[in-house]
């Protein structure tokens, strides 16, 4: 069929939405490719899907030796920490590549909680302060692991949490539900409201006054716990603007989560294509049926689209672009659904085997569904976007 000529230029962007960011770099650099290869090799060696299943059913959901190799040997724990503070001095772009790989293998590791959430919050604190610098150094070296004591569902742009109070002596009392990555975390970075307003505090997780109550989480590969403080001794982590520091951490993590979701979706697509290319029914390879090919083609399109969105968010965070809140809201709202759809298709297209406990598809489905809630639901990010791009809700 003869095509029309090129689309018209008639529809130009409305002035109200004319943030015209420079085009983000949406590709992968050689350094990023090398990093990906290193992480992938290590995971293939130490953490195949079968091992993940065994691990999450055991006593210790995180493999401390795997985390040591990732954190210290590959330097992932300090990826976002500047070199002068003992880290790798990398950016959100490299962290995003790591999360693609960790998502693609549904690895239980505290990377998101420690190296992204807690670290990003600390990097917005007073970097001349001894407590802040000391903790960042230990995290970067991999000798200490931390997590940020917020519900995994916390979204950027929300109010500063008020469930934990700090008294005049700096003792914390209160409770935070569904905190991620507490296993192995020696330090909790806790947002709390003190006599002088909101602040961030460092608390030793092992302190007797700290209660960490793991519960059975939907996502087997990312354990959650409710955390309570009863007059717990805490060290202030000074910052000029604690709510801004917390929000920056949540924005960074939400943007990078899109890359984890991309990794989940890519695995589901690849594995399903591989399986349908092998399985025979009705005397044919199942993957030769057009109804299934079209579903996979649509899924492929979603995955490549999610890649563009996730790269845009990572690049905006890495370059400190003023467009980052838009890029993150777009990526998070889009990629969350793609990961869930990919995992649901993986289960369905594997047929009966996809429903079994032995097949790893369910680990991806559970991660994808939990990630949809993590760091803001798609609907929450759309609401944020509505304000950012001036498409207001009805009055």
């Amino acid at each position, binding site marked *: *069929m003869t095509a029309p*000529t090129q689309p018209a230029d008639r529809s130009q*962007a409305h002035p109200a939405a004319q943030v015209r960011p420079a085009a983000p770099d949406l590709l992968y650099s050689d350094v990023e490719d090398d990093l990906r290869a290193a992480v992938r090799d290590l995971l293939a060696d130490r953490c195949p899907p079968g091992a993940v299943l065994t691990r999450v059913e055991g006593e210790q959901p995180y493999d401390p030796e795997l985390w040591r190799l990732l954190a210290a040997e590959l330097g992932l724990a300090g990826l976002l920490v500047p070199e002068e503070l003992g880290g790798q001095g990398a950016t959100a772009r490299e962290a995003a590549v790591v999360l693609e790989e960790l998502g693609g293998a549904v690895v239980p590791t505290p990377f998101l909680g420690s190296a992204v959430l807690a670290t990003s919050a600390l990097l917005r604190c007073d970097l001349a302060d001894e407590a802040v610098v000391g903790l960042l150094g230990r995290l970067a070296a991999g000798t200490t692991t931390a997590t940020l004591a917020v519900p995994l569902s916390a979204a950027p742009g929300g109010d500063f949490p008020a469930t934990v109070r700090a008294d005049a002596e700096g003792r914390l009392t209160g409770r935070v539900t569904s905190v991620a990555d507490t296993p192995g975390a020696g330090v909790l970075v806790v947002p709390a409201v003190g006599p002088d307003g909101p602040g961030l505090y460092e608390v030793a997780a092992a302190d007797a006054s700290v209660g960490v109550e793991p519960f059975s989480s939907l996502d087997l590969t990312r354990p959650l716990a409710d955390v309570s403080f009863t007059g717990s001794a805490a060290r202030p982590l000074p910052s000029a603007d604690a709510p801004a520091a917390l929000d920056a951490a949540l924005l960074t993590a939400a943007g990078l989560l899109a890359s984890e979701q991309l990794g989940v979706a890519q695995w589901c697509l690849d594995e399903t294509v591989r399986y349908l*290319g092998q399985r025979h029914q009705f005397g044919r390879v199942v993957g030769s049926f057009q109804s299934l090919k079209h579903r996979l*083609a649509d899924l492929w*399109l979603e995955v490549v689209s999610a890649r563009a969105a996730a790269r845009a968010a990572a690049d905006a965070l890495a370059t400190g672009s003023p467009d980052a809140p838009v890029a993150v809201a777009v990526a998070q709202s889009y990629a969350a659904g793609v990961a869930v759809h990919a995992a649901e298709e993986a289960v369905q297209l594997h047929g009966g085997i996809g429903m079994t406990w032995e097949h790893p598809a369910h680990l991806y489905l559970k991660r994808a569904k939990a990630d949809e809630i993590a760091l803001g639901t798609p609907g929450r990010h759309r609401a944020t976007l509505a304000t950012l791009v001036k*498409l207001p809700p009805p009055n």
Partner: protein
Amino acid sequence: MAKGREAEDGGEDRAEGGAVDAAELRGRVRELLAAHPPGAVSPEEFLRARFDAGLAWVHFPRGLGGLGAPRSLQPVVDAELAAADAPDNDPRRIGIGLGMAAPTILRYGTEEQKQRFLRPLWTGEEPWCQLFSEPGAGSDLAGLRTRAVREPGGDWIVDGQKVWTSSAHTARWAILIARTDPDVPKHQGITYFVCDMTDPGVEVRPLRQLTGEAEFNEVFLTGVRIPDAHRLGAIGDGWRVAQATLMNERVAIGGRVLPREAGMVAAAAATWRERPELRTPELHDRLLSAWIDAEVARLSAERVRQQLAVGSPGPEGAGLKLAFARLNQRISGLEVELLGEDGLRYGDWTMVRPRSVDFYGRDAGYRYLRAKGNSIEGGTSEILRNIIAERVLELPAEPRTDKDAAWKDLPR
């Protein structure tokens, strides 16, 4: 889809492009403007001079309107000339020539053909159309039955019927595929030609569409004479040549990188801002989802552009048109609904023959109806899904019975 990219770039060497940079291009633009002041010479004269200066499409070879420069530098030239208020070649009007015919001629044409056709094609003095689809050959394009028979003198005589031909009523030339050997399997018996639309055997009839307009045509070919010098590629090799055209067509339709909130979403967003009384919570969430999908599609196109620019093509190009069609249909449908009572009004059903195709023009009703074509023209979405599944995901093809039999023996 490596083939697509190669075709899109005309298969020309980009290595020599290293020598030309943005500064040199700006210098050449200044020289062009000084020697041919846009206000003092006719648009045609200016455009010919621009072509001769290698500033038409900078990635084309020298002598053919280009400088062998990286394609990514074209915007530098376009911006400088737009700032000087220089006339352009109205790319929307001649999009089929620019997007489909030119890269195919560049890749498969003889030196004489390149010299003869490319300059007036680019200046717009000779518009082009594409005689591919037939009433009995749509998605199964290789089943086409328009015949080209060679005379003892060497000329070809063409008889048949083509359909869905945009711009046939304004075109000077056409790219045409026709069957030259019915005794071999269908993909092997096709040859690619350049057809003179002024030949007395060419009859163009408007084909009215569901929008009320007739942007397409039926084209009847009766004893049309084509000299062998206007054959593009080898006899029987037309299917391969046509692939280059089709790859370019998909990029031309779906592959443009627009600014944020441009394209189909622009009008819906503008209506939302300007008419608060139309807003409902349900429409709000759908609008935001569509806005996000449009932004993601824009980023995907940008990512493909970046991959092409650094010479590491990805397969994503094949999906751009699929996404483009789906998005346009969804957003234009939403826009009509958003308008409520006003969505019941349609501008004008009068049969007109537009000089160019406009996806976004006129009113919401037009946009909604015209967008239905986006998933049909240039390869249906179903065919594109097959291409993605088989060439990108490498899933097996459906069992086929028509690949090895002679074309004349196929059931029809």
